[in-house]
């Protein structure tokens, strides 16, 4: 009893201390929930992540389960969304496939944000030839068509999901570097950066403590929205035969597998396609909502 009271008073004290922060937070949350689309996006994103985490409990059939008697079978009570060309249960495969998509999405975004931030901040902060050199490198990457460069890299490394992730990270980071660079360029001219310098802060300190926290909100938005398009690209690469192998529980691969049976068993390609559509839409709506609360200029 007494410990609960103690805890309560601790929480109260914490809330008093951080009153303005809590108010600001509440305001943002309220703003976010005002937009129905953003809420739908949030629900989809959370649902997707939960499905990926609890896949073993949710999927009715184990990973790689197959019944060759049921090849191309139509949806039934036992197999809600039907069976694919090797007899796997499509519903289970979509659930298992969410793990792959999530992994690819987060891995690629993580690598891109890290690398892009590093390059972008250094280029913008030091300027001059450093900037020139780094930005020409990003130009080279951006000059290639996105998907073609991905395919070239996967072709060179050999197909497989890991290589697809590596290829996509290599191809995607330059746009992050550009975004960060633009942010830092405007922020490093602000008075408070000069003020920080005038009190003796080192370059490193200025970059990490003063520039980064102020330039990060567009990155959060960009990476949320990118999660969706990265999953699509990964699916596209699998679709053209790079990445996941035949019969693997990967959404893009499942669409390819069903391609030949499109007329007599349309469910094989349709349901994984819908899964991609919904998840990608969810991330985009969520990203839009985030942008509305993170960008004060968009606030009304």
């Amino acid at each position, binding site marked *: 009893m007494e410990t609960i009271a103690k805890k309560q008073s601790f929480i109260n004290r914490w809330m008093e201390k951080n009153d303005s922060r809590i108010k600001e937070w509440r305001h943002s949350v309220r703003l976010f929930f005002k937009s129905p689309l953003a809420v739908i996006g949030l629900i989809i994103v959370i649902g997707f992540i939960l499905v990926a985490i609890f896949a073993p409990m949710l999927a009715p059939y184990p990973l790689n389960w197959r019944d060759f008697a049921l090849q191309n079978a139509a949806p039934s009570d036992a197999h809600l969304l039907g069976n694919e060309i090797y007899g796997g249960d499509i519903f289970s495969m979509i659930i298992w496939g969410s793990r792959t998509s999530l992994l690819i999405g987060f891995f690629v975004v993580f690598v891109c944000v890290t690398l892009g931030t590093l390059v972008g901040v250094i280029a913008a902060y030091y300027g001059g030839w450093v900037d020139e050199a780094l930005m020409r490198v990003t130009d080279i990457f951006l000059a290639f068509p996105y998907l073609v460069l991905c395919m070239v890299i996967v072709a060179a490394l050999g197909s497989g999901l890991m290589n697809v992730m590596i290829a996509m990270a290599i191809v995607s980071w330059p746009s992050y570097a550009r975004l960060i660079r633009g942010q830092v360029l405007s922020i490093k001219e602000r008075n*408070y950066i*000069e003020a920080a310098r*005038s*009190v*003796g802060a080192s370059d490193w300190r200025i970059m990490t403590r003063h520039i980064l*926290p102020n330039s990060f909100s567009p990155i959060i938005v960009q990476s949320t929205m990118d999660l969706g398009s990265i999953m699509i690209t990964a699916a596209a690469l699998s679709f053209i035969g790079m990445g996941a192998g035949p019969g693997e529980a990967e959404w893009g691969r499942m669409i390819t597998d069903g391609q030949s049976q499109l007329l007599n068993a349309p469910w094989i390609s349709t349901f994984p396609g819908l899964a991609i559509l919904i998840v990608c839409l969810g991330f985009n709506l969520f990203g839009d909502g985030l942008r509305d609360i993170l960008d004060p200029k968009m606030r009304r």
Partner: protein
Amino acid sequence: MADVLLSIKGLKTNFYTYTGVVKALDGIDLDIYKGETIGLVGETGCGKSVTALSIIRLIQWPPGKIDEGSITFDGKDLLKLPLRDMQKIRGNNISMIFQEPMNAFNPVYTIGDQIAEVIMLHQKKKKKEAWQDAIEMLKFTGIPAPERVAKSYPHELSGGMLQRSMIAMALSCKPKLLIADEPTTALDVTIEAQILDLMKGLKTTTGASILLITHDLGIIAEMCDRVGVMYAGNIVELADVGSIYKKPSHPYTVGLICAIPTLDTKHCNRLATIPGNVPNLIYPPPGCRFHPRCNKAMDRCSKEKPGWYKVGEGHYVSCFLYEGGDKK
């Protein structure tokens, strides 16, 4: 004469722009004594702020560069110090107050965080102690409810409050020299008076020297012990505050003081002005930079740069009209 705290000799700062080299400072000489308040006045673009930024070496390259001169502080030439040592001096021995307090704080941290950061940077103190010191400093600058202000974000405070916080931050490591670059320009008149009073009071308690940059002769008269008048990258006259108003000597200073509107100016009299425009500092006039606008210009003014001539006790002028006086 009191001890010299900081001595600037022949400082030349240039900006290398696409259209040409802007010769922003053309050999500044200035001594700042311990415990004094020295003012720099001049019109926009005459190099006041560049002087201030040069002292703490915040001129950004590119495009700016300090090409010549020396700035001696504590027996060391600041211009030759490695960056790391310079960072130890900034905020610790020499600190600066900026023109617009609203932009001089990082919007993502609280005021207290930012003051504590400076304290932790220069004194080996723990976060908690630094935070206590920060509140102490805020209290010192006369902020009511310093605990609340310390926890506020910059956008939650008014300009006057922020400038007080800025002063608290600048003084938090007990600097020997405080550079105030137009500290009240962005504030309204009543707040301006409060901030000036505060700075005056703090000077007597901390004993720091203040380099006050402004274009307001009124502020100079109220705050300063000595004043340097700047024109187009030169200090043209240096004197005690009293003598500059009583006996302005350089034609530019005379022009400036005549241009102050007074209550007894007849309504039919037009306000006195200095004819002409500020020169483009990419192509500054040869010789004395003021000669094209000067009503007392002589032939030699366009050929040679005048030296320093003494016209009174501690009163020096850079103009050939006073060549008869003692050389400095």
